[in-house]
């Protein structure tokens, strides 16, 4: 009998479907990926993210009609350190957790300008809007232990290849190959002859002249060096390079540990598109933080907004109140062990309006669990307290239990 009840439960739950989770929206609070663009209401896909100065200039040129006019709708995320520094970051650098490295690698400046054709949310067609924002990480977790082991293995095998090549370079220096000897002697002859009638600095310039015989001789020598060191009769070097490639293919770049990020932005409104007539349109500052573990994840968000386009404390209604400040916060604890079908989460959200006493703060606490029966079918269950203080019960398991309870009622 018990087996039949469980089977019926599953059938009813599946028929009700996964879609019956309207009451639970677990992403009510989201950290903005692009601060200023988010303040101006741009879609993430509309934000330009140039990675070097050339692509930045091309993007600006396109947006400004070849630098003839200010862009009318344009959003840009810049990583200053990547753009302006000639340095790059290797995997070793990206695994650093000291604040200096993390800040340099994650600091983003966000810029945007917006004009609308008609009234949209709080934007007016006769005004121009500009936004400025920033984002950076304070704490960044390291790669997981498995990835660290792979990196160590890669470095160890690369070192063996390099030690082998150092020996090859020694042999190359002592090479008596007639062609190599001729090219080396010719190179020195050209240098000495040139230096006799030119300064040392001019000789250096000649070395870099791609039309000079010196440049051609050196290019041949470099090519022969490459061929010389590629000789690997025992296949030893190639074996190591193949093993390195296999290790690299397993590298996931997954991070585990504590993380914390801060973002902020503000938007200005230029009345009647006049640059000398502006006011603060909206602003915000928020921090997201958490811990990512193997099976357990804790995420948190605290956010202060001035004049948001929607007020979370009023069930996400459009903001029609002037000069309003809101404060929202939330935490989510998720348990999702790999190789199991079960996941559970506990989420709480607090929302408030700071600048008026007519809207009371409220909070919500929801427990959610699901079990994957088949690939695209889950048993879901949620229970908790809604913002209005009422009890919340949802999920297709609840529906199934309710159905069964009704079916088994004594008449």
């Amino acid at each position: 009998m018990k087996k039949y009840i469980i089977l019926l439960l599953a059938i009813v739950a599946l028929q009700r479907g996964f879609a019956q989770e309207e009451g639970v929206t677990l992403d009510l609070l989201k950290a903005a990926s692009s601060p200023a663009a988010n303040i101006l209401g741009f879609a993430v896909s509309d934000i330009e993210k140039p990675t070097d100065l050339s692509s930045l200039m091309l993007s600006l040129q396109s947006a400004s009609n070849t630098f003839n006019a200010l862009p009318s709708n344009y959003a840009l995320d810049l990583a200053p350190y990547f753009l302006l520094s000639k340095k790059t970051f290797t995997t070793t650098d990206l695994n650093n957790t000291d604040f200096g490295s993390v800040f340099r690698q994650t600091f983003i400046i966000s810029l945007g300008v917006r004009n609308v054709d008609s009234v949209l949310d709080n934007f007016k067609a006769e005004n121009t809007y500009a936004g400025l924002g920033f984002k950076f990480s304070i704490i960044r977790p390291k790669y997981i232990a498995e990835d660290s082991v792979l990196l160590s293995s890669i470095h160890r095998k690369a070192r063996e290849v390099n030690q082998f090549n150092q020996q090859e370079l020694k042999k190359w220096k002592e090479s008596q190959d007639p062609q190599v000897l001729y090219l080396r002697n010719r190179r020195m002859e050209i240098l000495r002859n040139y230096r006799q009638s030119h300064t040392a600095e001019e000789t250096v310039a000649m070395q870099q002249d791609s039309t000079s015989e010196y440049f051609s001789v050196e290019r041949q020598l470099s090519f022969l060096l490459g061929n010389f060191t590629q000789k690997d009769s025992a296949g030893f070097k190639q074996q190591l390079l193949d093993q390195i490639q296999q290790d690299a293919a397993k590298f996931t770049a997954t991070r585990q540990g504590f993380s914390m990020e801060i973002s902020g932005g503000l938007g200005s409104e230029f009345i009647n598109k006049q640059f000398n007539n502006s006011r603060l349109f909206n602003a915000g500052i928020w921090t997201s933080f958490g811990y990512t573990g193997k099976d357990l994840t804790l995420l948190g968000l605290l956010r202060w907004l001035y004049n948001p386009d929607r007020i979370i404390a009023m069930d996400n209604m459009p903001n029609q109140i002037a000069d309003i400040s809101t404060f929202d916060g939330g935490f989510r604890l998720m348990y999702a062990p790999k190789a199991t079908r079960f996941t559970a989460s506990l989420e709480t959200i607090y929302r408030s309006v700071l600048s008026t006493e007519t809207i009371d703060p409220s909070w919500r606490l929801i427990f959610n669990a699901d079990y994957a029966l088949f690939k695209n079918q889950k048993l879901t269950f949620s229970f908790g307290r809604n913002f209005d203080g009422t009890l919340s019960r949802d999920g297709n398991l609840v529906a199934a239990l309710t159905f069964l309870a009704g079916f088994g009622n004594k008449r």
Partner: protein
Amino acid sequence: MNTSLDTVYLVSNTEAVVTLEIIIGATGQTAQTIINVSGGIFDHEVEGSLPETEIGTNRALIDNELSISSVIVDMSPDTNVTEMIIRLRGGIAFREYHLSKVVDTDKEAVPYVVLIHFINI
């Protein structure tokens, strides 16, 4: 695209210090490098890039060689470019040498070999 270099860096007969910097690219790649200056002057291994580092005086480096062997692994999911930029300062003039290779298959490992002769003429 080239992954090998045999070149000459002109130095003077002075005690001015010569520095070496190695930049590995593109962002997200992994590298291990062995650096050696003959005559026991300088010996170093590094994972990733090498910040500007003193390798000896002009006078000490005359008629010696700098040998660099590096393996750069394409770990980045965004690009298949591997590159090595070598910068030498403190000799007769600043020199920058640029080597690179775009790998055909993801996660490929590329060996680079460089030999730089320090000459005073």
